[in-house]
C-alpha cells in the first residue's frame, strides 16, 4: 500500500516540476552567482587537469636525449610507439600486444566485478531492509581499501605462493601432488587482485540505481505473472543500467591505466600500458612517455564513448 502512495506522490511531483523551467529561467537573470559557485571546481580542473594534459600533449611532440628534452614538433615519438607495427604484420608489435593484454584484463575484470558487484548490490538493496545494516555491509565492502596497496600486494604471497596457504591446504587435502604455480604471478592472480580491489566501484553505483527502482514496479511485475528471473531481466536490470554503466566506466578506466597491481601480481612479467609509460619515465624519455599517455587517453576515451552510446546516461539519471 505504502508503495502505491509513494508512487502517486512521485507522479504528482513530476507534474509539478513542469512548472520548474519557468522558475529557473527567472533565476538565470541574476548575474554572476552561478559562475562563482562553479568557479572553484572549474579552477581546480583547469590547473590540475587541463593544464597538465595540455603539457603532456605538447611534450609528446618534443625531442629528447638521455638527459634533456627540447621543444620541437615531431611525430617521431608516435612513430616510435608504433615501431614495427606495420613491418611485423601479421605478428603484433609490442604496443599492440600490450594493449591487447590490457584490454583482455579489462574485459575479464569487468565481467567479474559486474557479476559480483551486481549480486552484492542486489542483496544490499532488496534483502537488507534497515539502513544501519546496509551501512555496516558497505563498510565491509571497503575493507580492501583499509591497507596500503603495497601491504595488500605483499600479503597475497603467503596466501597464493608456491608454499602459500592455498597450496599447502590443497596438498594437505590430497587434491594435488605438487603446488600450483599459476596461483601467483599469473593472469589469474592479476584478475583476482583487480577484482578484489574494484568490485566496490561496481557495487556503489548499481546499489544506487537499484534503490531508485520503484518497488511498485516489481510488485506489478509479480502481479502480472512474471517469474523471478523475468522480473530481473525485464525490469530490474534495465532500470539498473545507469548504475552498471557508471560502474563499468570506473572499472574500465582504472584497469586500463593500472600498472602497480598488474606489475606486482604479474611478477612484473605481464606488460601493461602504464608499466611501459613508467619505464620510459624512469629513463627520462618523457616525450615518448607522453606520446604513449596520449594514445592511452585516446583509447580510454574511445572506450568510454562506446559505453555511453549504449546508455543515454543523461536521460536515465
Amino acid at each position: 500500500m505504502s508503495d502505491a502512495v509513494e508512487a502517486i506522490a512521485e507522479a504528482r511531483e513530476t507534474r509539478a516540476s513542469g512548472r520548474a523551467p519557468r522558475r529557473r529561467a527567472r533565476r538565470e537573470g541574476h548575474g554572476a552567482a552561478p559562475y562563482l559557485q562553479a568557479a572553484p571546481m572549474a579552477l581546480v580542473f583547469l590547473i590540475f587537469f587541463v593544464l597538465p594534459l595540455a603539457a603532456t600533449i605538447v611534450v609528446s611532440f618534443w625531442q629528447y636525449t638521455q638527459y634533456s628534452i627540447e621543444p620541437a614538433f615531431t611525430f617521431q615519438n608516435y612513430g616510435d610507439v608504433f615501431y614495427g607495427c606495420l613491418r611485423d604484420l601479421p605478428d603484433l608489435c609490442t604496443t599492440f600486444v600490450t594493449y591487447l593484454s590490457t584490454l583482455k584484463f579489462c574485459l575479464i575484470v569487468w565481467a567479474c566485478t559486474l557479476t559480483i558487484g551486481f549480486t552484492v548490490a542486489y542483496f544490499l538493496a532488496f534483502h537488507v531492509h534497515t539502513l544501519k545494516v546496509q551501512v555496516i555491509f558497505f563498510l565491509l565492502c571497503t575493507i580492501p581499501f583499509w591497507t596500503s596497496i603495497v601491504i595488500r600486494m605483499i600479503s597475497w604471497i603467503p596466501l597464493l605462493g608456491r608454499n602459500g596457504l592455498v597450496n599447502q591446504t590443497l596438498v594437505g587435502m590430497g587434491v594435488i601432488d605438487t603446488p600450483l604455480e599459476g596461483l601467483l604471478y599469473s593472469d589469474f592472480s592479476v584478475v583476482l587482485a583487480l577484482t578484489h580491489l574494484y568490485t566496490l566501484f561496481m557495487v556503489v553505483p548499481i546499489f544506487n540505481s537499484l534503490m531508485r527502482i520503484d518497488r511498485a514496479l516489481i510488485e506489478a511485475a509479480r502481479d502480472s505473472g512474471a517469474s523471478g528471473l523475468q522480473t530481473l531481466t525485464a525490469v530490474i536490470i534495465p532500470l539498473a543500467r545507469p548504475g552498471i554503466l557508471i560502474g563499468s566506466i570506473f572499472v574500465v578506466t582504472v584497469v586500463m591505466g593500472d600498472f602497480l597491481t598488474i606489475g606486482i601480481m604479474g611478477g612484473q612479467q605481464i606488460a601493461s600500458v602504464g608499466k611501459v609509460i613508467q619505464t620510459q619515465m624512469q629513463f627520462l624519455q618523457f616525450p615518448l612517455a607522453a606520446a604513449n599517455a596520449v594514445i592511452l587517453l585516446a583509447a580510454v576515451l574511445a572506450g568510454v564513448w562506446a559505453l555511453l552510446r549504449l546508455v543515454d546516461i543523461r536521460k536515465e539519471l
Partner: protein
Amino acid sequence: MTDMFRKSNPTRRGVLKGGAAMAGAAAFPAPFVHAQEAVTLRYLSTAVNQSPAIAEKASEELGINIEYIAVNTDEVPRRVITQPNSFDLVDSEYFSLPNLVPSGNMKGMDASRIDRIDELASVIAEGTVNGEKVGWDGTAPHEVLYLEGQDATAFASEPTDWITLIPTTYNADTLGIRPDLIDKEISSWASLLDPEFAGKSAILNIPSIGIMDAAMALEARGDIAYGDKGNMTREEIDFTIEKLIEAKRAGQFRAFWSNFQESVNLMASGEVVIQSMWSPAVTAVRTQGIPCVYQPLKEGYRAWASGFGLPQTIDGRKEDAAYEFINWFLSGWAGAHLSKQGYYPAVLETAKGFMEPYEWDYWYEGEPAAEDIYSPDGRLLEEAGAVRDGGSYWERMGAVACWNAVMDENQYMVRKWNEFIAA
C-alpha cells in the same frame, strides 16, 4: 626545512647548538646570526643507502642534520636531472653519470677539500685491486670519476682535481641461491637460464642492471661473446633480448624485481631459488633464518658503486657542510657501519679502525668468524666459525667482470627491454 626540524626536535637542537656554533664560527668569522642554526642537508638516494644510525651519528658529531629523501634506483638520476634544487647531496650509482654529467646539474667536487682523496679504494679510483686490473666492461667508476673542470659536462681521461662522485658504498653482485632447494653445484652465471630452474629464477626489472645479468648468463652459456657487454651494439642488444624472450616464453622466470625488498621477499618465500643478488640482500634473507648463499661464480662478479655528488646549485654553508659530512663519512665510523651490513666503503683503513679485529677478519679477510657476528642493529648474522661467501675483499673485488652500465644505445635498449616485458 630547518623550521620543521626546529619545531619537531627542540631539545636535540639545544645539544647541538654548541657544536654547530663552533663549526659555524670557524667557517664564518663574521657574526652571522643564523650561523648558529644547524645546517640541514637533504640527502637523496635509494632507501638501502640511508641508515638512520648514520644520520644520527653525523648529527651528534658534526651538528649537521641529515634529511633523507628515499627514492628508487631509477628515480635518483631522474630527480637529479628534473629537480636539481630538491636536494643538497646525492648518493648516486656511478653508472648514472653518463646521463647526469652532460645535463650540467652536477657540480664537480674539489679534490683538495676531500681529506682522504688519496686513500680511496683502488678498485674505484683506478679499476685495480692489488695492482691487478679488474674487468672494465660497463661503466667502470674510474672511467667516470674525474671531470675536466668544476662545471665541465664531459669526463676527463686523466685524474684531475674535480671529482664526480666520492664513493659511499660498492660491492660485487653474483647469483644468490637457496641451497636447501637446489641440489646441484652452481658455478656459472649460465645457471640463471638453466631449464632445471624453470619457473624458479628471477632477474631485475631495472634494464641497466638486468641486461648485464642476462649478458653474463648468455656469455657463460656460450651463446655469444660480447665486445663490451656494458656497451652493446644494436645487434648484441637484439640478440640478448631475443634470448631473454625465448627463456621467458619457456617459463624460465618466476618474477622480475626492481628493489632490494622485493628480491629478499622472493628469495625468502621460496618463490625463487636462484637470482642475481646484492650481498646485503643475501644477508637480509639469512637473518630471517632462511639459508641463502651468495654464490661466487667462475665468470666473476657484476659490480656496482655508488657515491656522493653535489648539485650545481649548492653553495655557502650548505656546501661547506656537505664537504664536512663527506669527510666525516670517509673517516671510519660510517664505513664500519656499512661494512657490517656487507657493503664495502671508500676508505678501508679508517673503517678498519672502527671494527673489532674479528669483525674485520670476517668481513674483509675471508677468515672464519672468531666470535658471533652481529649486524649494526644487534641482530645475529652468523655464528662463530662462519666464513663469508666469496672470500676476502680482494678475492671478491679482484674477480669483478663487469660494472652496471648505461650504454650508448640506451634508448634502443629500453625499447627492446619493453618488448621483452611485453612478450
